[in-house]
């Protein structure tokens, strides 16, 4: 078995990179962390989508409970956070796909792309909420 062969207790601990403690914080680093945090937030946020769908599939009373929550201050705050996490992660994901294809990794462009992720995430969130309030 793999577990008996590996003998984790007998091995020396693997060396760890002192990445966070020695490097100056750069915008690309900050956006890397923000990408992970927004991803984790979306993980929890999908529960809200599940609640919405289950409520809508049940009956009008159950849907009313969800509707009441999402229209409350807390509900709007959570939905606003979810919207930001969605757009930030979306733009960050596009940036990562471009980088993984080998483009945009040079000095000025990579920082501009990271800044664009930060600014674009907030901008799209505010635009979509503006549209949301305008159409409802």
């Amino acid at each position: 078995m793999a577990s008996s062969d590996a003998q984790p207790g007998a091995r020396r601990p693997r060396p760890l990179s002192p990445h966070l403690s020695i490097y100056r914080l750069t915008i690309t680093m900050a956006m890397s962390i923000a990408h992970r945090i927004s991803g984790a937030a979306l993980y929890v946020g999908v529960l809200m989508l599940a609640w919405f769908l289950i409520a809508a599939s049940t009956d009008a009373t159950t849907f009313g409970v969800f509707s009441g929550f999402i229209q409350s201050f807390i509900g709007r705050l959570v939905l606003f956070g979810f919207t930001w996490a969605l757009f930030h992660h979306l733009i960050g994901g596009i940036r990562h796909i471009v980088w993984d294809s080998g483009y945009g990794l040079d000095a000025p462009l990579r920082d501009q792309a990271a800044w664009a992720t930060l600014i674009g995430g907030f901008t799209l969130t505010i635009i979509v909420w503006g549209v949301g309030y305008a159409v409802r």
Partner: protein
Amino acid sequence: MSDHPSDLRTPLGRVRFLGSARMGTTDAWVVHLTSVALVPLTVGFVWLVLDLLRKDYNGVRAELGRPVPAILLLAFILAGIVHMELGARSIIVDYIGGQARAWALAANTLFAALLALACVYATLRIAFT
């Protein structure tokens, strides 16, 4: 080569399970594949939500009963949940070790599977009832 001359295991036996199983790129590929799919799907999902904001219970059900919104939603749910399950897996592997890692990985996969089933079931129920 061996640190233990009395070790009866063969050199092959000592290194088995410690290296590549040639599956290392599968997860990364699926994360990228779903991320590409999720770019248009997220735009469509946000569009759908903005449309649903204006509607009451019956309006929401009527909208989600139409083929294009229902299929868009199902695609968004499936691609999104596969993507988030793999993303959470890499977070778990980065920060959690030992026995807890196995439990966290199992909890992640089971949670994602349950969430996907619940969302797909609810969407189909709205669409077909």
